[in-house]
Every structure is written in C-alpha cells, then in structure tokens.
C-alpha cells in the first residue's frame, strides 16, 4: 500500500500535469486509504494547482495549460468534496466575483475564482455580463468581504466605476474591498476609480486579496 504522501503527490501531479484521469484515480485512492478528504484536497490537489500557478508565473504555462489544470482539479474535487467533514464553525472570507455588464469574456474571471477557491475563500460567482446592481445585492445578501470585478474590453471598463459608485451610494464601500483586473485594466485606472487593488493575473489576485484583508484587520 502506498504511503499517504505518495498519494498526495499523485493528486498534485494529476493537477499540475493536466492529467484528469490521474487526479480522479488518486482521489479514489485517497478515499480508500482513509486519507481525510480535506487533507487530500489541500495537501494534494491544491498543491498541484499552486505549482501550476508558479509555472504560469515563470511563463512555462500559459492559459491553455491553466485551464486544463483547473479541469483536473475540479475532477478531483468532484470525487473528494462529498466526503469533506465540514467544520461549520469556521467561517471563510467571502468573495463576490463577476464580469461587468456588457462583457462576456470570462476566462480570466474563472481563473481568479479558481485560485481564490484554492486559497480557501468562499466564492459567489455571478458569471458574466453582470449589472452593477446585481453585485450590490449579492454583497448585501452574503455580507461579502471582497468584490472582484473583471473585464477584457476597454469599452466596458467604466462599468467597474459604476459598481464602486453604487457601493458608496448604498453605504457599503467601507465594509467591502474592491479588486479589479482584466486586459485593459491598469494600476492607474484602479487608482482613478478608487478600487483597492489591481491584479495583473490570478496568482496576483490571491496575494492581493490576502494582503488587503490583513491590512484591513490591522486597521480595525
């Protein structure tokens, strides 16, 4: 019988090497070997996804590879998730995410969503072409800590400012952090519309989310 570490390594390998079959097979092995499902996810699949993220930062991987790693990761999660012993007392940080109104390009948004999930955030994905008001109602409904806004098109960038304005109008701006990203977005644009962070890619978004939340905690 394989050691726990060998199985965890195979979980990571399946994700990192875009091998969906291996990720699924190793997930079943983990269950058969009584490895805790959460451990298998966090020390197996998530490790693989983080390694993929590292390869992306090194420009070894590009978007096609990340998409396939993410498929392998979700395939493993499908096997493992039903077996998680949830500790309901522990509350996660909540993120509302979506592509702003008028834009349907959602690859970048999906990658950010995945990396935030991997980093143990609770995600509320509103999808694409999302009106500003829908972001606001979801923030209110779930008491979100962060809103992530994405767009690939220069023509729809200003919809991000609309969301921030509406948050202000509703008196929610102080309680929620706003992170933005996408092709035409820059730090200068983030400054101008008053967003809390601009992230260049999905890996950066996770770092920014953690940094902003820890700064906010210090501030409070």
């Amino acid at each position, binding site marked *: 019988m394989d050691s726990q570490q060998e199985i965890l390594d195979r979980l990571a390998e399946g994700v990192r090497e875009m091998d969906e079959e291996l990720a699924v097979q190793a997930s079943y092995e983990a269950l058969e070997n009584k490895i805790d499902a959460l451990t298998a996810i966090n020390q197996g699949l998530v490790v693989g996804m983080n390694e993929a993220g590292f390869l992306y930062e090194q420009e070894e991987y590009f*978007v096609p590879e990340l998409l*396939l790693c993410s498929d392998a990761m979700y395939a493993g999660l499908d096997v493992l998730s039903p077996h998680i012993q949830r500790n309901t007392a522990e509350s996660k940080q909540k993120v509302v995410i979506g592509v702003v109104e008028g834009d349907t390009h959602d690859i970048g948004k999906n990658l950010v969503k995945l990396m935030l999930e991997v980093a143990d955030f609770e995600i509320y994905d509103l999808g694409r072409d999302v009106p500003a008001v829908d972001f606001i109602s979801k923030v209110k409904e779930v008491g979100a800590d962060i809103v992530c806004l994405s767009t690939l098109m*220069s*023509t729809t960038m200003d919809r991000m400012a609309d969301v921030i304005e509406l948050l202000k109008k509703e008196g929610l701006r102080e309680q929620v952090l706003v992170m933005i990203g996408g092709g035409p977005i820059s730090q200068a644009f983030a400054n101008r519309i008053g967003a809390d962070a601009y992230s260049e890619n999905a890996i950066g978004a996770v770092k920014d989310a953690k940094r902003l939340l820890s700064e906010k905690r210090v501030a409070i």
Partner: protein
Amino acid sequence: MNAIPKDEMTPKERMAAFAAGKAYDRIPCMPLVGEHACRLIGATVSSYSHSARLMAEAQIKAFQTYRTDSAGIGPGLFGIAEAMGTKLTFPQDGMPYVSEPVLTDWNDFERLAPVDPHKDGRLPLYLEALQIIKDAIGDEVGVGSSVGGPFTAAASIRGTERFLKDLRKNTEMAHRLLKLVTESALRYIDAVCELGLKPSISEPTASGTLISTKQFREFAQPYLKIYADRIKERCGSGPMLHICGNSSRIWPEMVELGATILSLDNVIDLEEAKNMVGDKACLAGNVKPIDTLMKGNREQVYAESKECLRKTYDSPKGYILSSGCGIALDTPPENIIALMDAARIYGKYPIEPDRWDN
C-alpha cells in the same frame, strides 16, 4: 497653440509615397476607428451592424471628419465565424459578442463548410458597404477590410476556452479547424481583392497574454502566413497585422509570416519594437485608446503622440501614428481630430525633433 499645417497630399498620395520610399508631407495616421464611426451618424451599433448602407455612411463620414490615412470596414473578429454558424449577440448599442459558438462538439465538425462570402452571414453586407465606400472616397484614400485571423476565428467557432484546451487535448482537430477557417478567410480575402481593395488582419486571440510563443508558432503563424501570402499575391504587398496585448515575444514571427505593418497595442514600448523589428516592418501605434483618446483632452493626445513620435519616427521601415487598439465607441471626436492634428503638427516633414520639446 501651434498653427495646424494643412495636409498637402491626399491619404492615397501620401501612402503611395510612403510605400515607394518617396517624400511625403507628414507621418501617416490611422486610428482604428471601427464601430465608433456609427456615433458620427447617430446610428446604434446593432442597426449599423446589419445595414451595408449605414456601415458605408458611417465610415465615409468618419473619413470626411478625420481624414485618416486608411478607411474601410470588415468582418473583424467574429465575421468569419458568424458566417460559418456561430451566433453573435448584438446588444442594442454595445459591441457584439459571441453567444453561441457553432462547434461545441467535435462530432459536428463535418457539418462545417468554408464560407461563400457573397451569401453567408453578414459577409455580403461588408462587401456591399466596401463597394459604396470605394465609390465615394476610394480616389482619395486606400480602402481596406479588416478580417479576423485564423486563431481568433477558430476560437469563436469552438468557444475560446474550449479551443485553448484543444491546443493540447485535440491537436489534430484544432489544426483541421484552423485549415477550414483559413479556407473561409481566403474566400473572403479574394472577394475583397476582386473589389480592388486590400484586406488587413486582426488576430487578438493569438495574444502572448493567452498562449506561448511555441503555441503561436504551431497554431497561428502557419495559417496567418497563408492569409498574408494570398494578400501579397493579390495586392502586391503584405498586410497590416494587429495583435492585442503583449506581442513582443512573437514580433519576429509576425514579420516572418509576411506582415508589412505591425499594429501594436498600447502595452508595448515602441522603442523596444523599433530596436527589435523596426528594420523589418513598419510599426503602427500606440496611443492609449481609453486613458488618452477617450478620457483625455487635446493636450494629452498631443503629449502622447509626441512620445510615440520621439520613440519611432526614425524606425527604418517607417512609422504610422495610430491608436494602440480599437477606438472606444464613445470617444469624443475632438480627440481623434487632435490625434490627426498631432500627425500634422509634430509629424510634419522634414521631422524636427525640437518641435516636440514643449
């Protein structure tokens, strides 16, 4: 404020001199006007997109307003995919987008066929509009038609996310699809050339932001070369090629496949481009469409245009002042006029770099 020198040549005369290496009056200027033109005639994007008459009227008006050094209209990013069966959504007054890619299942591949540009999708509308534009202003300006590149078209037929995964999981089918869209595009290119006009290529999805250089070489370059070869064969010179985002890693490939003008995104440093490939292709770019052209004022447009000129005016194969990407719909026309004026003032020949100092 500087007096704005009047143009001494028509755009057509200027570009002929430019291409022949003869003297001309000022740096050429070709903002990527696109759908913004419909704002000049008060038409919505969706009505414009479905009427050859409105497309022609808008683009003629844009030329008359700005006196750009190129004019025309084309199927752009999605037109070829649409003509092959992909469904687009046309928001009342926003940019169209792909809502239903036609080939979500490879089993349906055999149902796809190369387009007939005189019948399929909205391609006949573009050809009709091009004829009207040519008749109206073709003696003054080169009229062209921008067609989406093979990678962009294939991604719109499969759905971008699916197609990116295909590069690794269904390599053979990806190539078959690329061959098929290339055949479609060649038919459209031929139809444009029959009108005596020259196509250009826009290939945003093959951006270095999405795929690696290796993937560009395998899945985009060979098919782009087929486009470029056909355009060269029919028109006598290679096309302009626009790729969005960071294209620096693939400049040598863009030149190698036969592009004679590289249209560069505003994330690019023109000086770096000049140093790397300026001796092999003319460069065009790259004033920021949003920060400067949409939200800036005349002074900001001048300042950034001067910066572009400073970096690139002496690029060996020439330089064309342009926007770094498509002009946003609601860009104030004054700012596009300011861009043209920047070419007239600061790009007037003989170039005197002192003119850019303040």
